[in-house]
């Protein structure tokens, strides 16, 4: 193909006959705005369907069962980021509005700048206002103009700060380590030594350094290689130990999930329901949950609210609303249990301090709970929550006549054990066990017949902690810990020379038995 292909005819370039380019751009933006609006409308309709399904009651049963069903749905909502999807709808509409404003401004700019400037001004104002509330919302958590953008910005800022801090500390650590390594390096030391030497013999220094540095470099290489090998070995051991632990630990995933689900249910019922019957069902169900895993801390608040709703203190004495005695008893038991468990699991939880403050506002330190049906539970709660002040003003708990049902005994002993373990973990080694707990242990171990094995184990755990045994990593203790402690007592102490140990004649004893 050359200039003679078309002869004398010079072909003309085809001209664009459609709307101008600016109009196309404006149309594209407008369609984008329209599409976004329609899609958000579509999602909104779907969301309405989803929420209808969520709100529907698709099963019957007790309040606990219905609550479990609701909690399962709620867990699904959280797991599938339903709230994020729903929050994207207004975002899409806002984006559509922004696109519409931009397209309209662009289109009107071609027609008349005066009219366009009005639209542009309003759109710009809207954008600036939106940016302002995003910044304000991210700067202050109490700002009422919160938007998804402000939340994201706040998270990003927090992450950025953490990352910056980590980077700075890492850089400092690297610098420090490098400096130390160089300080210990045989090569550097060799050079320094030669430098000192070279002040007197400058000429020979340049010649000798390359020859003598070989050995120093070899030493450094050896040290570096050894450090890398040791690091790898340590890492391998750690990984192996972690693997062994993970393989040997039995998995109770489904049970834990179920218990966690139930604790959420109960917490929700206690916080939202006003029906005392629902409250009673919830706290009674909670009382039957013996192993309490990581649970919702607001459960403590819920139990406390229910308990305070049933009882009040008048002139130093506790008064329970008539007809709510059973609820007061069960809620007090659950309050003791959840509070002690939270103390053991999350000792730094803010809920603990909050409940303590609320308790101290309601119950004075010298509140008298004697002659009350659940006096021992109340006494334990009072000592747990009110230990900061008026500790010695309050009469001690008398356990002599405490002979509760087995289940209640288990719950109380577990709660007191968890309080003790919490104290132990906080490192209060001087007085490991609160003094008011030991009488409970003494009484429980004195019962004939002995209480259930769980109570005995808990009591022995408390004693072991008080004796100073190391219980870290031990779930359940027995008398062997006390025996091990005792066995270290020298046999000859306070014994007459030649005197034997305390050994009784077993045959005699058995005969008399």
């Amino acid at each position, binding site marked *: 193909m050359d200039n003679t292909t078309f002869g004398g005819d010079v072909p003309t370039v085809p001209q664009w006959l459609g709307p101008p380019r600016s109009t196309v751009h404006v149309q594209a933006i407008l369609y984008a705005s329209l599409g976004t609006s329609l899609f958000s409308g579509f999602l909104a309709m779907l969301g309405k369907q989803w929420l209808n399904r969520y709100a529907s009651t698709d099963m019957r049963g007790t309040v606990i069962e219905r609550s479990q069903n609701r909690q399962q749905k709620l867990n699904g909502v959280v797991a599938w980021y339903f709230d994020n999807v729903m929050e994207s709808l207004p975002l899409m509409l806002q984006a559509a509005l922004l696109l519409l404003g931009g397209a309209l401004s662009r289109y009107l700019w071609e027609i008349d700048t005066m009219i366009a400037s009005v639209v542009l001004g309003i759109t710009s104002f809207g954008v600036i206002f939106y940016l302002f509330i995003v910044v304000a919302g991210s700067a202050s958590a109490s700002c009422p103009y919160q938007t998804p953008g402000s939340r994201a910005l706040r998270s990003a800022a927090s992450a950025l700060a953490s990352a910056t801090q980590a980077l700075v500390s890492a850089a400092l650590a690297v610098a420090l380590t490098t400096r130390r390594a160089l300080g210990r390096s045989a090569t550097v030391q060799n050079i320094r030594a030669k430098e000192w030497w070279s002040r007197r013999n400058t000429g020979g220094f340049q010649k000798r350094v390359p020859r003598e540095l070989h050995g120093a470099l070899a030493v450094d290489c050896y040290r570096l290689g050894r450090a890398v090998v040791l690091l790898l070995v340590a890492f391998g051991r750690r990984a192996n130990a972690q693997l062994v632990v993970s393989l040997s630990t039995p998995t109770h995933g489904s049970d834990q999930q179920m218990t966690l689900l139930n604790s959420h249910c109960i917490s929700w019922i206690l916080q939202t329901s006003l029906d005392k019957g629902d409250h009673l069902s919830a706290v009674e169900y909670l009382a039957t949950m013996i192993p309490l895993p990581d649970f919702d801390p607001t459960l403590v608040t819920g139990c406390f609210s229910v308990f305070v709703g049933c009882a009040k203190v008048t002139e130093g004495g506790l008064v329970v609303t008539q007809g709510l005695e059973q609820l007061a008893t069960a809620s007090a038991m659950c309050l003791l249990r959840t509070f002690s468990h939270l103390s053991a699991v999350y000792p730094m939880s803010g809920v603990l301090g909050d409940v303590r403050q609320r308790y101290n506002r309601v119950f004075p330190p010298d509140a008298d709970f004697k002659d009350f049906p659940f006096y021992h539970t109340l006494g334990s709660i009072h000592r747990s929550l009110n230990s900061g002040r008026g500790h010695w003003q309050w009469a001690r708990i008398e356990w*002599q006549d405490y002979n509760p049902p087995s289940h209640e005994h288990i719950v109380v002993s577990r709660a007191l054990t968890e309080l003790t373990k919490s104290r132990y973990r906080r490192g209060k080694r001087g007085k490991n066990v609160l003094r008011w707990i030991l009488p409970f242990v003494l009484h429980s171990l004195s019962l004939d017949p002995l209480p259930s094995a769980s109570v005995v184990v808990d009591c022995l755990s408390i004693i072991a902690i*008080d004796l100073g045994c190391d219980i870290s990593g031990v779930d359940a203790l027995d008398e062997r810990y006390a025996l091990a402690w*005792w066995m270290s007592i020298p046999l*000859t102490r306070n*014994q*007459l020379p030649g*005197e034997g140990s305390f050994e*009784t004649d077993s045959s005699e*004893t058995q005969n008399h*038995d």
Partner: protein
Amino acid sequence: MIDAADPDAIHSKRKAVTALFMYAARQERDGRRAMLHTFLQAARASATLWGFMWCRITPLITTLLDEGSPVSLRQAAVLALPYLPWRDLSSGDNEHLVQLWVVAAVTVPHTNEVVQSVADTLLQTSSNSSLRPHIPIETWSWLNECPSLPPICAGRFWGLSLSVVRMVRALGDAETLTSYLILVWAEWEYLDDESLSEMCTLIQEDLGGIWMGRYRVVLLRHLDHVLGQLDLGSEYLRQHDPRINEGDIRLRNGQYVELKEVLLEVERGAIDELIREFSGSVALFSQLIISSYAQAQGAVRHLCVRFLSSACSLVPGHSDPSTTPPANRL
């Protein structure tokens, strides 16, 4: 973890250890005696003069001592009772405890540990003025079984108090008194001045005389043993009681030497009395023998005369000697 070899550390954990006692007693009943054994060991190793066990255990021990309890439980309670804070117990329910203890002590097997425990408890109880009147007199006969008490023993310490010395003295039984003195006189304790004075008095007044000699011999022998132990020095004694120092040893040595001297003085007085009585007895006996001899001699002479007269009467023409004048008699 605290050092279990330190008695103070063990004592600071006495509440926790006490809380295990009832459990240990039940283990003993079921045939597992390790816990009770170690409990008693801990209590003994960290024994103080004010008791080891927590006072809250007192009502629970009372239930163990009840007659309905198995013997093993009663025995466990009897063995643990010396470690109760007896000085702090007041009258009231504790009177019942003393009565139950006395009954239980009789019914459990009399092993060495039980005898030792009962003696220890008895001395502590008797030092408590509110409980003392409730101790039956027969209980003191336990001291006659010659129990031995550990070096650090609250029973011996409180048993040396003046009130206890007077009470034992008031029993009026020399054997019990001697057993008591043997029990409380030890190289591990010293006596306060009042008790020492009272003991000297009782030695002079209650253990004086010829017929108390055997008790004095036993006491002298025991004092020699105590003084011999004190002569071994502080290092030996500190192995069992770290609180002892040289000053204590000198003080105790002086006190026991004084007691020994009093005993020896009483013994000398008794010997003098014996000699006096012996010399009087010899004179009387001699006189008796002489008079008896004289009487016998007269009787023999009379018999001879009678015999000769009878013989003469048988010979014809011979006169009866009895009828002859006295001047002609043999």
